């Protein structure tokens, strides 16, 4: 990885993390794909894009989860939810699953962003 790619990679992480946090305010969690997508576009690569997006959303959602744990006791709600499935006292499993799914959505968004930009930009250059 050259220096430029590294900067883009890290910028993608930062961008997707910030976007993941901002987009969560809308209440539409599906928009998190956009956060990863942005990282992919920035990286101009499906590979680096998915990694950058994944890590970024992981950090963004991780921050939200951490903030929630500190300020809002979501463990009780997760335990209540888990008890429907006969599972209690496993809020920490939910925390891990949530940030891992955040990582996954970032990866998918990043791959899409990196791929689509590669499809669009070469065409533009040919013109």
């Amino acid at each position, binding site marked *: 990885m050259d220096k430029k790619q590294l900067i883009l990679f890290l910028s993608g992480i930062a961008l997707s993390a910030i976007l993941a946090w901002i987009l969560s305010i809308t209440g539409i*969690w599906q928009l*998190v794909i956009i956060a990863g997508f942005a990282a992919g576009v920035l990286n101009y690569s499906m590979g680096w894009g998915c990694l950058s997006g994944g890590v970024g959303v992981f950090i963004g959602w991780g921050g939200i989860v951490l903030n929630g744990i500190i300020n809002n006791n979501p463990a*009780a*709600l997760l335990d209540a939810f888990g008890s429907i499935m006969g599972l209690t006292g496993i809020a920490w499993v939910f925390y891990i699953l*949530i940030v891992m799914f955040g990582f996954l*959505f970032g990866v*998918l968004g990043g791959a899409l962003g990196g791929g689509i930009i590669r499809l669009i930009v070469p065409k533009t250059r040919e013109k």
Partner: protein
Amino acid sequence: MGKIDKKILINVIIVGVVTAGIVTAFSIPLGVIPALGNILFPGKGIWKIPGEVPEYEELEVFNLENDVTVIRDNWGVPHIYAKSEADLAFALGYVHAQDRFFQMDMGRREVQGRLAEVLADFAPGVEEYDKFNLALGMKYWSEKTAEYAMELQDNGTIDFMDDWVKYADGVNYYLNTHKNEKPLEYYLLGFNPEPWDIVDSFSYTAFMSSMLILQFSDLSRYSEYMAFEAAGYEEWYAEKYNNIHYGQRPIVPEYGDYSSPPVPPSTPVEVPEENFELALGFTEFLNAIGDLPYQKDLLTREFTHGSNNWVVDGTKTTTGKPILANDMHLAWNSPGIWYEAHLVCENTGLNTYGFTVAGVPIPIVAHNAHIAWGFTNAGMDVMDFYFYDTINDTHYVYDGTPTAFTTIDYEVKIKGKEPEQFTLRETVHGPVVSDLTYGGFSAEDFGLENGVLATQWTLYNVTNTFRALYGFNHATNLAEFDEASKFFDVPGQNIVYADVDGNIQIRPTARVPIRDDTGIDPWNTGNGTMPYNGSAGQGDWIGFVPFEDLPVSTNPSQNYLVSANQVSVGPDYAVTKGYHLQPYGYADGYRARRINEALEAKGPGTIDIDFMKDLHFDVVDTSAAAFTPVILAELDNAYPSKSTEIQEIYDILDGWDYEMDKDEVAPTIFRAWRDYMYQATYGDESSEYGISAYPDLNLLEYIVYENATSHWFDDVTTTPKVENLTDCVVKAVDYALDYLTDVYDSADPTTWRWGEIHKGAAPDLLGIGVGYVGPFELSGSGYTVTPSGISMRTYYTSTSDFRPSTHGASQRYIVDLSNMNNSISVIPSGQRAIQSSRHYSDQLIELFLQGLYHEQWFTNIPSNFPTTAVESEIYFVGGH
């Protein structure tokens, strides 16, 4: 497009499809599993549900007259200070919605037959329960009561309906400004809160009333009567039901006592053959009702839907002023039914602290600066059944005349299904309940050729109870309180009262129907105790017992008053007043016995708040005190030389103080013995003749003490041997020991701890475990002042088979009329129905189960509120 582009395109398509698939999977509900993404992922669900209310909020509200201050104390109890009562109601609506909206929503849905609309996934068949509730008329009559209240407002009879409207405004203001903060249950069920309406508040009153007065015992008594008739033991019915005053201490002491011998059995009467078929039909009907969701408990519960209240006057207290105590026994849930609130209105001087029901804009049980009151269920029979011949689907015979059913059409919405249309048929008396069980209950099932069964109850009408509650909260003396009591029509309650002037009072009150029993069949015990033949015009309600004739005791010479659901009046009441107020439906009096004994034993100037606390949490079982000496005596009779096993049991019981302590083993032995003693005494008649329920425990006590050779002790399945008291006691001991050895997996009685099987729990409202609190070990029993009831089924084989009690004291409070600031209270849950809140179950865990209470901070000036007790504040800016 070049080669590389094509490869990328394929990859993008693959990733796009995978992304769409995963996102969709988390966005849509799958069966009963809700859309997981909406619950779990940041941006929605649990991340938006506020565990706690904000520490400080300032809200500009355009339809408030003036500013309103809400201070929540350390237990999350709101203390609301406003200039007008309308503003006060607005703020109460806001905090109710903030803390309890899902509970409010479920309550109104239950009354209005709208549970299936949101719960059909979780509770299949719940639409039948919706129909049942619609048929009971609670929705219809809630709407009518709301209309009636508005008419009273319009014609100037009352002036507080604006407050109820403002309350709904407050609820809706919260809902509109917090759409993304709905409780977890809404995500799980996949629907959104709907606005609150004034009718919903009246619905909740109906919900409470139905919980307390709905009963089907007329039908079971009838079936039982016929069972005894068929067996040729008609006098046994009379004995079972007429003797049950044994040991009773009436609530109102002025009408004599039941120390005289029990009423002798009535003369047997001829019963027509068709009655037996009808009895079988009623039994089948009851079984079908039991299949409805939530109704089984109603038919089988122990008498824990009771309550205690008592009051002592100033001669007995250390302060010279009365002290009043109350604990109402209802289902335990998380959240509990009660929500504490303190309401202060500067303009009117209202200053009341008490127990509200979220959804109703006024405290139900409370004290203000002048008076205090409390409730127990009075158990008056205000629900009757009528059976009729029908001519066709549209007509039936009433009083010998063809009469058309009236009908009401309802639509029951069912989540995920087409709505069901439902036509309720009504007779002159009320709804045809035989149409209601699963798939309808056919006429043939009743043994009637083309017959139906209808019910009439006092809730099938408009109610004035809301006026009584308003009057109670505003009363400043006994006369004003009495005036308000006239409006208290449903549910029947024993209302205990005390004031700062030193008065104490108790008043069993309700709208009690007077039946026209002229010409009823000779087998019918009358007074609404059995179903009436409606086609013959029997049992019409011809009026209600006048308020002036209802019993009341004011400042009695005994200096205290007690109600614990025991019989309301002594035998002189029917003689002097001419009304049979309460033929059945009362508890067998063991809790009342204990409280009476405890208060009676205290001399002048000795009772204080601490004594009242101890009595609230008292776990002495007076039934154990009555029966244990009999067990010991009969074991002595039966075993001049006892085995080691029997001797061990004997010694444990002999040294017992009758406290149902969770850490002791004697309560376990006694409780098992009691159930087996019941079975040894009545089980044979039950199976042989079809007795639907065992007699009350005090009848067993009566025959144990007064008639050791009673026919009940004879096992009717083992002729010619005639068993006696000793046989039954010993048999019950033997069975109990075998049973406990089995369930505890130990023959060592010192390991049979009561708390291991006697537990409690507070289930969530949905009953699916979303916030279930418990189980926790409990002291007490169904017969102690601290109530709780478990079933001890004979088929249990392990301690883990025992289900926790989910009924008990739903609140406790003690009011010191010498200084209201000394008053204390507690609820067995918490104020806030959000699982992640510290107030979800804090009072249950930290206070209730520890035998503690919290202070009420009863100040009418917000600036005097101790800062250390302030947890959060809301400041509504009004006057726009």
